[in-house]
């Protein structure tokens, strides 16, 4: 055995890789398959020598060794003998066109689904059974008619083109659409499902969607009917052609038959398309799901309409209400504003009066404080100065400050204290930057 040469490089050892003695066992090999090796050739003999070790194997060993061995020669799994119709066995080979090829080969359980392999095996079984030599042995005549039927059936079914032609007109594979009555007994899906499954064999597009059941979604059902209304069929009708005369003499006759056949094929094809369309129409008409979906749809529509109307009503009501409220609010606001205005005027007047009164109090307090003169009658200059200063204070403060000052002065009769209050006020005003230091001489 030659060495395996691998020119692609091995990977670099990853950083930090470690194994005991640089080796790590990680996984086990997958289960092996027991097979027979061929006891042939020098390499086998060398192997057998090693394997035997001079041992002798017994019959038991044989059984044990073979217990799980993979078989290569397959026994046919699906070989069933379908019963043979005695009438069929009496068929003449010349009538091969009208024979059911699948029945002849005993594979009506498969029909268009039969694989090439199944057809072959079926043929073989029938040959073994019906070869004329077998009949002769059984004391029968050397009649080989049915044997020829078998050959014919295989000839047709093992040629893909001819098989399709036969499958196109294979009555055994047809499933008649159920009557309306049967359908309405609640078997719609079962009965029509079979019909569509059978029709589906002609489809160029595979897989063919299934009819489904009452749980199918609307999309599925729509897809299903769309598919069937756009069905692309390979069905052809050559098989039903009238035989074309084989001889060369009658050329015109030949051409005539050929033309006739062509026309017949076209006609049948058109008829078949129409038939299928009707069939789909019928199914559609009987399909409860369509009604269901339609009802659901109109219910949905209704619901949506009602909802819309209700919504509109609500919106209208809401708008009316809002309008009313707005109007009310506006009126209230106007009234309030009016009232406020009136209030304002009153309070302004009151304030004015209060200020007047307060000013009077303040000015009076100056007099009470003897115009800030220490003792005795105050000279005129002192009086003027004091009054001027207090007026200045009054002009520099607002009504509230004036009120505050007034309330301080209101009950005070003591001259010194009054002067103190004024001085304090001056000080505050100086602090607020409204009066400059020393501006008020009398209160200095």
């Amino acid at each position: 055995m030659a060495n395996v040469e691998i020119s692609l490089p091995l990977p670099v050892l990853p950083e930090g890789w470690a194994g005991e003695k640089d080796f790590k066992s990680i996984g086990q090999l997958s289960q092996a398959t027991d097979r027979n090796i061929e006891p042939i050739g020098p390499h086998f003999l060398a192997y057998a020598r090693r394997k035997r070790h001079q041992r002798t194997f017994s019959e038991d060993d044989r059984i044990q060794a073979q217990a799980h061995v993979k078989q290569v020669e397959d026994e046919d799994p699906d070989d069933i003998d379908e019963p043979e119709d005695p009438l069929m066995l009496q068929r003449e080979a010349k009538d091969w066109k009208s024979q059911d090829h699948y029945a002849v080969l005993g594979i009506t359980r498969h029909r268009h689904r039969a694989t090439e392999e199944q057809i072959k095996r079926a043929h073989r079984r029938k040959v073994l059974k019906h070869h004329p030599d077998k009949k002769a042995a059984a004391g029968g005549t050397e009649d080989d008619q049915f044997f020829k039927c078998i050959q014919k059936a295989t000839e047709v079914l093992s040629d893909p083109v001819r098989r399709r032609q036969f499958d196109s007109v294979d009555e055994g594979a047809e499933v008649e659409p159920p009557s309306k009555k049967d359908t309405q007994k609640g078997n719609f899906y079962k009965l029509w499902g079979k019909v569509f499954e059978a029709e589906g064999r002609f489809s160029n597009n595979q897989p063919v969607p299934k009819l489904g059941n009452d749980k199918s979604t609307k999309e599925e059902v729509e897809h299903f009917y769309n598919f069937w209304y756009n069905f692309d069929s390979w069905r052809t009708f050559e098989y039903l052609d009238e035989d074309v005369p084989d001889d060369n003499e009658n050329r015109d006759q030949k051409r005539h038959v050929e033309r006739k056949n062509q026309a017949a094929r076209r006609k049948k094809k058109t008829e078949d398309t129409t038939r299928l369309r009707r069939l789909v129409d019928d199914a559609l008409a009987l399909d409860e799901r369509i009604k269901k979906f339609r009802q659901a749809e109109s219910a949905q529509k209704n619901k949506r309409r009602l909802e819309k109307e209700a919504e509109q009503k609500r919106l209208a009501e809401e708008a009316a209400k809002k309008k009313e409220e707005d109007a009310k609010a506006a009126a209230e606001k106007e009234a309030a504003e009016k009232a406020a205005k009136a209030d304002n005027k009153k309070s302004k007047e009151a304030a004015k009066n209060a200020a007047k009164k307060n000013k009077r109090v303040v000015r009076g307090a100056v007099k009470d404080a003897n115009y800030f003169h220490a003792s005795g009658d105050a000279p005129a200059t002192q009086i003027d100065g004091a009054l001027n200063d207090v007026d200045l204070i009054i002009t520099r403060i607002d009504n509230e400050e004036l009120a505050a000052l007034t309330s301080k002065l209101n009950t005070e009769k003591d001259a010194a204290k009054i002067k103190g209050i004024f001085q304090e006020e001056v000080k505050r005003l100086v602090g607020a930057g409204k009066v400059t230091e020393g501006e008020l001489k009398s209160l200095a």
Partner: protein
Amino acid sequence: MSAQTDPAQRVAIGISFGNSYSSIAYTTGDGKSEVIANEDGDRQIPSALSYVEGEELHGGQAKSQFVRNAKNTAAYFRDFLGQQFESIDPSPCHQSAHPIQHGDGVAFGIRDTDEDKENTVTVGDVTTRHLKRLRSSASDYLGKDVNAAVITVPTNFSDAQKEALKKASTDAGIEVLQFINEPTAAVLSYDARPGAQTADKIVVVADLGGTRSDIAVVASRGGIYTILATLHDYEVSGFKLDQVLIDYFAKEFVKKHKSAGDPRENDRSLAKLKLECEAVKKALSIGTTANFSMESLVGGVDFTATINRTRYDLLGSKLFAAFTRLVTHAVEKAHLDPLDVSEIILAGGNSHTPKVASAVRSAFPDSTTILAPSTSSTAINPSELSVRGAAIQASLIQEFELEDIEQSTHPMVTVTPHLSTAVGVLCISGDESSGIFHPIIDAETSLPVRRTATIATPREGGDVLIKVAEGSRHIKVTKPESKPKSEKEEADDEDSDEDESDEEEELREKTWKVGKTLSEAAIRGVKKGGKVEVQINIGADLSINAIFREVGAKGGIRGIVQGHKTNGST
């Protein structure tokens, strides 16, 4: 065993015994197989016996009796051996003695003495007579009394059939050393050629014989062969190809000689037609035209005609296609892809036909070698493949006691576990960072097995990781329109200049998917440009014993992966 010969006294040959033809071969002192011609000079000896006035005719002489003495000519009987009458297909005997029921088995009713009386001759007896004739031809040629043989049989030959054949052989004075399967005999005849190297490969043996076709998919692993799948078909056959020519020439004849009638409707004419058509078919394997020539085909009318190979290829196209389909089906049945097939050995007489080879050729990728006369100058004659294999096997075992041979071919020896996936290592390739799998031992290799691989290391050497893993083969299919701009254009510049108008052909490639990791090992300090050697031993219990070392360095890393305890066959 009563008829056992002392191994030292044995003169053993290989025999291939077909329904249509038989061959005999021996192995020369220097280990080459030689096919023996009989007295008539035939190496393909028709498996036929005919009786004329009590005289036994054999081979080609018997076959020519199909015309005048069909009823007393027995042919195409091998598959009847050891079978019940219900299970046989008498079709091939349409133009010779018909098989009849006899007790549990099959016989022929023929006048085999000079008495005017039909005798019942069992298939076993007919076979014995046939084998006697083969034996005597071989003995005459070798100048020694041949007394033992390895005989090839189809893979679906039942134990009962083998038993019957063994008895018939013993009765003919031939000790059967071993029955071997026809397809593996064919593989062996290729592998036993001087200078041939055993390799790990999938070989398909496709045999288009006279009455049947048989396909076998064989895993060939270092000279050990395992049949993975077989297929048999009795409708795709040389008979059917002959029929195609029979129909063609019959129609030609009718066109020319309308009044003489259809030669197919007269037994004797049909027999003549058939013999000549087979000859024409054989001639078309070598020449591009062939002549049909028959005196008095029907009612004294002579007929000559020519046919060219193209016409024949066309007439037989359905059968050639059917045969090709069988080959691809068998590959599918083995769960393989055409890309897995390394070689197709075309066997059976009809594999001489160039169209058979070219039809199969076109169904397989270029990586598959087709071994047939028309595709390979070194191909072995497809009619001789089995018999050569048998002769080689005979030379290998003729010195063994029969008991020894029986024990060596005992299921305790032949039933072995086979790997279900390939085992290999992970390597680095240019664009793939994750590492790609490279197989060292292929799937379907019989255990125990040992394989060694030498693997490159990174350019600078250094420490490397050897990851042993399982890998499964995967077919990557690329659609043609999205032809990606190859990043490594230098690499695949080998595109053929001839632009075959292959429209929309998808590109299929064999790739590997990494499966289970089995072990990791490190080799440290590999020299620049150094290589690493990996030896993997897998036991029948699925244990792995591996040795990793730098090529040329001493020692190395050893590692063991435990096997399964459950496997019974050890």
